[in-house]
Structure formats: structure tokens, C-alpha cells
């Protein structure tokens, strides 16, 4: 009888230890392996984007450059965050589906494109898939975020951040928080999950365009490339 109990207990112990190891392996997968997937996608997107920018398509002239739109899943801009030390630039993809966000931070389709009047809304992972927005909780008002498009360097100055419910779509309105208002400014909204490893709330970082440079004039002085 005691042999049966002993065997059962040993089986239970082994099962629990095995499950524990599997859970640890899952953490490794989420925090490390998913980042490898994203790194590969970013390489591909960066190559595609540079190739399309080098394409001698008709370049908009004058003071009102036409933003360049893209298909879902393709790169539309490069995100630089001089406000965060040692922040490696990210290619922003068009679309925010689960698949799009595995490739990098995503631009919510239908919101303004970088360079358009209105609200450019970008969403990104905070803990997995390379965690492009991991340190966005550290962003302070006055910090700079730069979007590099084919023709422009767009520098946005952070105006504030807030924690909202996941349903707070008003942050994506052309004039954030004002439904139906007609935008006159170019603003940038960055969204990610909050707290880390949770989906209970969202961290929203707001910024407003403060400098718009032609690509030919070189990158903004604040940007160390």
C-alpha cells in the first residue's frame, strides 16, 4: 500500500515540476523568442522601406507635401525617440492587428498619416515582440519623438501622458478627446498596455508637432544617429 502512495506522490511531484519548467519556458518564449521574430520582421521592413524611399517616384514639392500611405503590414515611417537614451529606431507598420504588431509598432489605419493634419496614432508592444514601447512610461513632457518619413523629419514634443481604460477610443480622434472636431494641428498619440504584462489599462503618450524639416535639410539636431 505504501508503495502505491509513494509512486502516486512521486508521479504528482514530477508532473508539477514538469509543468513549472514548461511555464518558465513559456516566459522565455514570450520575452525572448518573440523578440527574434520581430527583429527579423524589422530587418525586412527596413530594407523594403529604404528601397521604396529610394524609388524615384514623383517627389512632392512645395510647402504641402503629400503623405505617403501604405498597405497593411508595410512600413510607413521610422520612429526615433531622442527622449529615451539608446533607443534604437523602429520601423512603424501600417495596421495594428495582432500580426502587424508582431512586426513592430503599428499605425492605426484611418488615423492621420505622419505629415497630415490630425492625430497620428501608433500602438506598440510593451513587453513582448521586441517591446518597442517598453520604456514609454518614462517619457516626460518636453521630451522629443521623431517620425522619419520619405520626405520629412517630423519632430513632436511630448505634452503629457495618461492612463486610460482600454475602451477610450477618444484618444484616437483627430482632435484627441473631442468627437467630431475638425483638426488644425498635427499631433501624435502613442498607446501601449498598462501596467506592464497586463491588459487592464492603456498608457497614452500625447505629443504635438513642433518641427517639420525637409529630408534634404538633414535630421533634427536633437537626433543622434
Amino acid at each position, binding site marked *: 500500500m505504501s508503495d502505491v502512495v509513494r509512486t502516486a506522490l512521486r*508521479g504528482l511531484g*514530477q*508532473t508539477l515540476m514538469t509543468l513549472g519548467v*514548461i511555464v518558465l*519556458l*513559456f516566459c522565455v*518564449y*514570450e520575452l525572448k*523568442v518573440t523578440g527574434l521574430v520581430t527583429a527579423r520582421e524589422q530587418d525586412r521592413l527596413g530594407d523594403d522601406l529604404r528601397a521604396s524611399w529610394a524609388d524615384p517616384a514623383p517627389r512632392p514639392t512645395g510647402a504641402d507635401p503629400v503623405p505617403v500611405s501604405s498597405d497593411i503590414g508595410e512600413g510607413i515611417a521610422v520612429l526615433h525617440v531622442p527622449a529615451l537614451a539608446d533607443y534604437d529606431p523602429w520601423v512603424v507598420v501600417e*495596421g*495594428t*492587428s*495582432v500580426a502587424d*504588431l508582431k512586426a513592430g509598432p*503599428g499605425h*492605426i*489605419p484611418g488615423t492621420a498619416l505622419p505629415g497630415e493634419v490630425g492625430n497620428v496614432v501608433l*500602438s*506598440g*508592444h*510593451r*513587453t*513582448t515582440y521586441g517591446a518597442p*514601447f517598453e520604456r514609454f512610461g518614462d517619457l516626460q513632457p518636453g521630451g522629443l519623438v521623431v517620425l522619419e518619413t520619405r520626405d520629412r523629419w517630423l519632430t513632436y514634443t511630448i505634452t503629457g501622458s495618461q492612463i*486610460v481604460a*482600454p*475602451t*477610450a*477610443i477618444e*484618444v*484616437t480622434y483627430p482632435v484627441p478627446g473631442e468627437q467630431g472636431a475638425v483638426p488644425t494641428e498635427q499631433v501624435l498619440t502613442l*498607446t*501601449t*498596455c498598462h501596467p506592464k*504584462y*497586463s*491588459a*487592464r489599462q*492603456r498608457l*497614452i503618450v500625447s505629443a504635438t508637432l513642433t518641427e517639420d524639416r525637409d529630408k534634404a535639410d538633414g535630421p533634427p539636431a536633437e537626433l543622434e544617429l
Partner: protein
Amino acid sequence: MYSWIWRTLPGGLPGKLFGSLVLLALLLLLLFTVVFPAVEPLLPFSDVTVDQALTDS
């Protein structure tokens, strides 16, 4: 379970070691390519946008 696997693997000590490594490799492959990607959507790490209905299609 592990002692049963060890007893069942053929080939003496070298064969048992080799067999164990093969089984471990197969298990890891299954976990990382099938199980973990399938479990991931059930966890909240991927919800980063506001109003998923706006963006999920």
C-alpha cells in the same frame, strides 16, 4: 514517468542518453512552435491599442 522512459530507452547508457536528448529536443520543438504560439492569444500581452474592435478585422 521519467524513470519509466529511462528504463524503456534502448541501447545501453549511450543509447539512453541519446534517446533522452532526442525526446527533449522533440518536446521543446513542439512547445515553441505549436503550444506556445497557440496559448499566447489567451494572455493579455498583445492588447496595446484602444478599442480592439476598431483595429481587429
